[in-house]
């Protein structure tokens, strides 16, 4: 794919696939039509770029899908519109009508309980967020062929079993909400890992604000929905401070609060307050409290709130005890109880695939270095770097590694 096309695809493929799938009731048709539209774009955009490239892709894919449906004669399966004449290439170039947003429906489809739990998030990341199989494999600490196979099976299940493309009615929510939330957690964590925010996931990190706001509007009494909306806002608020002028990642405790987005933090607090009123001990609500605590820091001259952070992590452990929570807690523990205690915690972690989890090596390397175990620290930094971090994090890890004499 050419560069402008690649960028448009990343930003808009989720919306386009969702719009087409909801309209034509077929995921395969949606994907094939978009692929064909991308192929046509290579020639059509060679001379002139459309006013709204995403709208161009959607309209062209829509025509391709319509033609296929008509050829196949399966009118009944699709919601065919009134016949209209084909737009001219010039009209397409000027078309900037918005693409209908059916992503929420697509998320619920991808997270249907009839789909294997391990496939749901992969499918959502692939279809709604436009990630490649390789990127998903990295996010899940899995092998690429495993993910590819999961995706194929899940898509077959959707088509074969007739899983619909609608936002479920109220009695369908409970069954499906947890799968949706877990999926969005993973999707956002992946976007957030790109510290510079200029990488391939920058757009959908921002879109998560919209998706979580929509979910919160539809489910105002679900504390974890509200907490997720809060977390995404706290995390996005800090984005401007996450990378310095040299493009190097800035760890949370060294970020200048003056550069945080106060409007987003206020929005986050609004969601979190509502969540805490309904379900103060739900895991996502407690996790959002950690973000809120950091965002309460007024300036760099105030000491980082490590002790409070550790207290909240202890509370989180009582409702969600897993290796990732323990790893994050160890960072706070190091500042409160010392590096040795933290390293003991980290070395006691047990999770298959941890060796491929970059933050594990980065946290370990920092602790080893502070304890003067330079050789082990270097090896740990090398392990982290070998896992292919984003630009900003790579530069930070390289600097830290260079400090280890």
């Amino acid at each position, binding site marked *: 794919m050419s560069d402008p096309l690649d960028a448009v695809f990343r930003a808009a493929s989720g919306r386009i696939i969702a719009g087409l799938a909801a309209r034509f009731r077929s995921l395969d048709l949606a994907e094939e039509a978009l692929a064909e539209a991308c192929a046509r774009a290579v020639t059509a955009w060679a001379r002139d770029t459309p006013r709204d490239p995403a709208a161009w892709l959607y309209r062209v894919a829509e025509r391709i899908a319509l033609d296929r449906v008509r050829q196949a004669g399966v009118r009944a399966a699709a919601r065919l519109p009134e016949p209209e004449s084909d737009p001219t290439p010039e009209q397409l170039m000027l078309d900037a009508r918005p693409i209908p947003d059916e992503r929420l429906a697509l998320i619920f489809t991808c997270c*249907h309980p*009839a789909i294997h739990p391990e496939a749901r998030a992969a499918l959502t990341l692939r279809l709604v967020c436009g990630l490649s199989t390789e990127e998903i494999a990295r996010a899940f600490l899995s092998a690429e062929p495993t993910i590819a196979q999961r995706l194929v099976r899940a898509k077959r299940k959707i088509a*074969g*079993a*007739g*899983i*619909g493309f*609608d936002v*479920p009615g109220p009695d*369908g929510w409970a069954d499906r909400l947890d799968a949706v939330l877990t999926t969005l957690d993973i999707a956002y964590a992946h976007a957030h890992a790109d510290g510079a925010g200029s990488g391939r996931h920058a757009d959908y990190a921002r879109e998560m604000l919209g998706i979580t706001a929509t979910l919160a509007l539809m489910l105002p009494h679900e504390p974890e929905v509200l907490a997720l909306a809060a977390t995404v806002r706290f995390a996005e608020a800090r984005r401007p401070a996450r990378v310095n002028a040299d493009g190097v990642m800035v760890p949370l405790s060294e970020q200048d609060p003056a550069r945080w987005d106060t409007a987003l933090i206020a929005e986050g607090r609004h969601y979190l307050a509502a969540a805490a009123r309904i379900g103060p001990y739900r895991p996502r609500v407690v996790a959002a409290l950690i973000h809120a605590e950091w965002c309460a820091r007024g300036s760099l001259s105030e000491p980082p709130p490590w002790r409070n952070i550790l207290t909240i992590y202890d509370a989180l452990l009582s409702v969600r005890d897993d290796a990732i929570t323990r790893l994050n807690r160890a960072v706070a523990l190091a500042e409160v109880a010392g590096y040795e205690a933290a390293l003991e915690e980290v070395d006691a972690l047990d999770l298959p695939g941890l060796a491929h989890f970059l933050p594990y090596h980065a946290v370990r390397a920092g602790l080893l270095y502070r304890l003067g175990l330079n050789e082990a620290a270097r090896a740990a930094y090398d392990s982290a770097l070998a896992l292919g971090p984003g630009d900003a994090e790579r530069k930070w890890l390289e600097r830290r590694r260079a400090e280890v004499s």
Partner: protein
Amino acid sequence: MKYMLMIYENEAVYDDGTGAAMGAIIEKHMAFGEEVGPAMLHGAGLQPVTTATTVRTDGGVQTLHDGPFAETREQLGGFYLVEAADLDAAIAIAKKIPLAANGAVEVRPVMAPPGM
């Protein structure tokens, strides 16, 4: 789409010696059929698993066995064929199927004839 809803139950729960349990569940199935209405295309209960005979083909050789194809506590005891817009609609019908006690309903789409 057409879906087959296959009902798996431990048929011992109907074996109360008086037929009262069977009578009660049949009444519930009749009410269920009326509630589902025209989406219900077909359905039937099966005779007890003690009446089952299995024809097995293995390497071209066919043999007969007394009993169901697999011995499990819960057995296929009946089925419905329904018309539903999508899986969720079929699941909604499946959830209403009356069961005497514990059990499971497997929801399977039926292959469309070629050209449909």
